């Protein structure tokens, strides 16, 4: 499906808007992307939408690149530019401004308290992410693999890429 200039602009503008709502990461607004791209505009099919997330997760780099994959499937490099620039531009400018603002008053009590108070919550949110990914598994081989990877990442200096490659090989062989 080809987009006219107004369609391109609407796509870009939609992702600009989603950017400022993506607190916690772009995946947070994935349901809204699905509503727009699949249900409302019919630019992507359901399998294309799911594959975008799976491909980005299997590729190296930040998960936000799934947004570029969606754009690419809508309309090649122009589509990828529209969605990725849209999702990144506002949040990037905002993050730099916020970072400078906080840095300029690093010793201000409310900010020291913020760093201290949010630290355990932040670590817990990361733990919850790992947990949610783990319990998606419905049988034991992936659970064993997850536990093994966790211990190795915690206790050894084994390269993460080696572990990921081993996981891919075991999975491709049908063991996971």
């Amino acid at each position, binding site marked *: 499906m080809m987009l006219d200039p107004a369609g391109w602009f609407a796509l870009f503008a939609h992702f600009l808007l989603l950017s400022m709502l993506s607190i916690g990461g772009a995946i947070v607004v994935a349901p809204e992307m699905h509503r727009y791209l699949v249900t409302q505009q019919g630019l992507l099919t359901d399998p294309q939408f799911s594959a975008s997330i799976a491909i980005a997760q299997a590729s190296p780099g930040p998960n936000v690149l799934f947004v570029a994959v969606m754009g690419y499937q809508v309309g090649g490099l122009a589509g990828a530019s529209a969605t990725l620039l849209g999702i990144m531009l506002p949040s990037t400018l905002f*993050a730099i401004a916020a970072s400078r603002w906080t840095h300029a008053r690093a010793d201000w009590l409310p900010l020291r308290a913020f760093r201290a108070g949010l630290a355990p919550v932040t670590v817990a949110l990361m733990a919850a992410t790992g947990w949610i990914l783990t319990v998606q598994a419905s049988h034991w081989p992936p659970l064993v693999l997850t536990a093994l990877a966790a211990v190795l990442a915690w206790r050894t200096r084994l390269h993460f890429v080696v572990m990921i490659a081993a996981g891919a090989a075991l999975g491709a062989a*049908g063991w996971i």
Partner: protein
Amino acid sequence: MTDPPSPQLPAAATSLAGAAPGAARPRSCTDLFITFTLLALQGFGGVLAISQRVLCEQRQWLTRAQFVETLAFAQILPGPNVCNIALMVGDRYFGGRGAAAALAGMMAVPLVIVLGVTALLAGHADQPQVAGALRGMGAVAAGLILGTVAKLVEGLRGNPLGAAGCGLFGVAAFVAVGVLRLPLVTVLLGLGVPAWLYAGWRIRRKLPQDRR
């Protein structure tokens, strides 16, 4: 007019710029770009775990505590957490150019790769071997995150909340998101704000005694 001896705060002891003595720093924007490119290229199924390993252990630009603090800010800001970390680290050392170099490092090469993979793989993602490999990588990626959490818990030592406070807020946040699946914003307001106020109270209470 005599002021009570005002508690002098140690200069940014826990902030990014006042990094612990001996801690390393990026040499240049090129260094930032290359470091974040190599980091991103090792991040399959998420970049957070490898970010911790590269920034804290390999480059030693951040301590574990600083990493958690940076992540805390990155998390409440809109945008991808790991990209926000890159922006904040880059901006801290080399301003806007540093932020651009770090973010470009994080995104540029991986973007080319992911679009290449898309062109190759689109339509094959359902094949059993491909699906199996994706499952295996996903299982390992989950483990890498959990193993990194174990390390970051060690970085909470010395947190003004104390072990009990950290444990309480940590477990509550984990249950809220991991088990009850509450939205992030709800959890940040419901637990983050109380944790913030409690930390402020604890820090203020300790100020006169040991000037932390």
